[in-house]
């Protein structure tokens, strides 16, 4: 919680892992990794590693949870006990329950729910290793899983975090930067529509810094968006090769 006066930015203006402030970590995106799911993806962003799977649209149990107007989305963000520094209990924590909610709300605006009344779409996210920005990686992966499940979408949802460390705004915050920095602010958006679907600020920013941070992270989202499209294209081409 406390800024520990750790040097998170070197005299050369570089971060602990050598990145420039506006540089995101390497991302690896693989679509279609879990055969039982209707859609799935694996995302590795630095040491943050996430599986996402989509089941549905499918029947709802119990029935009274269904809606006659549209599909219901359920989302479960879950961390494996070994994904964090101290083993965590596998039972959902308050943090996981909150993140499940905001991730669901980050995805919902992108999905054409009206096309699937009386059904449920389940989104499961499993954090295999956590090194900061896990909710953003989860949204990236879940968005790919939804698209690969063939669920019609207004746009893909891209996500990235922006932080403030040693007074400098930085993209794609790591665990160390989160713990010892001043600010962590994840944002998700539909880049093609310029619409924000998730925004959380945890730390102090002036309104001017906030505007700058939003501009910076939305640019990063556009970059990630292109990579998401490429990952889907790669899967599509591979599928064509196989068939």
């Amino acid at each position, binding site marked *: *919680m*406390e800024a520990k006066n750790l040097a998170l930015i070197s005299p050369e203006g570089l971060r602990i892992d050598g990145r420039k402030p506006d540089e995101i970590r390497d991302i690896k995106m693989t679509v279609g990794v879990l055969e039982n799911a209707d859609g799935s993806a694996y995302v590795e962003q630095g040491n943050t590693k996430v599986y996402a799977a989509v089941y549905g649209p499918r029947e709802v149990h119990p029935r009274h949870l269904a809606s006659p107007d549209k599909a219901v989305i359920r989302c479960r963000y879950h961390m494996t006990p070994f994904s964090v520094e101290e083993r965590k209990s596998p039972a959902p924590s*308050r*943090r996981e*329950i*909150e993140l*499940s*909610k*905001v991730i669901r*709300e980050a995805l*919902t*605006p992108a999905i054409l729910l009206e096309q699937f009344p009386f059904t449920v779409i389940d989104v499961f996210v499993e954090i295999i290793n956590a090194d900061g920005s896990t909710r953003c990686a989860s949204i990236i992966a879940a968005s790919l899983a939804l698209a690969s499940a063939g669920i019609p979408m207004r746009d893909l949802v891209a996500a990235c975090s922006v932080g403030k460390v040693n007074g400098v705004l930085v993209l794609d915050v790591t665990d160390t930067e989160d*713990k010892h920095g001043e600010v962590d*602010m994840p944002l998700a*958006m*539909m880049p093609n*529509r*310029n*619409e*924000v*679907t*998730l*925004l*959380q*600020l*945890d*730390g*102090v*920013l*002036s*309104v001017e810094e*906030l*505007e700058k941070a*939003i501009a910076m992270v*939305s640019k990063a989202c556009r970059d990630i968006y292109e990579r998401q499209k490429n990952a889907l294209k790669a899967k599509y081409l591979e599928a064509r090769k196989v068939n």
Partner: protein
Amino acid sequence: MMSKVRRKQIMEALSSNKRTDDRGLEDVRNIEIRCGIVPNADGSAEVRLGKTLTIAGVKMNIGVPFPDTPDMGVLIVNAEFLPIASPTFEPGPPDENAIELARVIDRGLRRSEMVDLKQLCIIPGKAVWEIWVDIHALNHDGNLMDASAMASVAALLTATLPKAAVNDKGEVTLDKSARQKLPIKGVPATITVAKVGDKLLIDPCLDEEEIADAFLTMTFIGDKTCSIQKRGEKALSIEETLRCVNIARKKVEELVNAVKEATGYGKN
């Protein structure tokens, strides 16, 4: 579920920048704050925001600090949405909405550094004050978030704790006759802006919440934001997001003053 008639009324009022209770888009409902109503609590406040009623109580005890902040007190926020408050609330452990509310208020209190947790350390790494803020909704007519944040802030501002000392044996002793206020560094304000249709409005009542697209809840300390949470099933454009921030910013002083008035904070 809301009737179509009611929905139409709300939308029509909004189309001329009015609310069905005659408020303007950026008007807060009537605020009533009563402090110190719970003798068994170390601090307490009941907030009535229109017909929304919520209560916050503060209890303090000696606890162990978190390993990564051995020299700081501990602050824990918990919220219960009791079935007494709404026909849609169920008994049982807090659901995702109650948990989100508690965590958003927790981040606002923590990041505003309202309470100087460093002064609540008694023996570094061993004994610190643990502050529990418990929020209970009693009547839900919308905007439980801002009402509960205000109740939490008012309860903390009026809370008192016994004087703690360390005796020869290294044990913590409490002098309950010498109660003092918490060390306060500033007074934050939490403001939610709702998007209904193409309008942005503050302090939504329950009916407005039900038809809102999205919400942006912001906590300010002075003129800086220290916590934001976008909520709701629809999106906000980037331009709308920034407009929400500017609408909220203009209300900070009014809300901070209301709390100061009710708590007497800063009077002497």
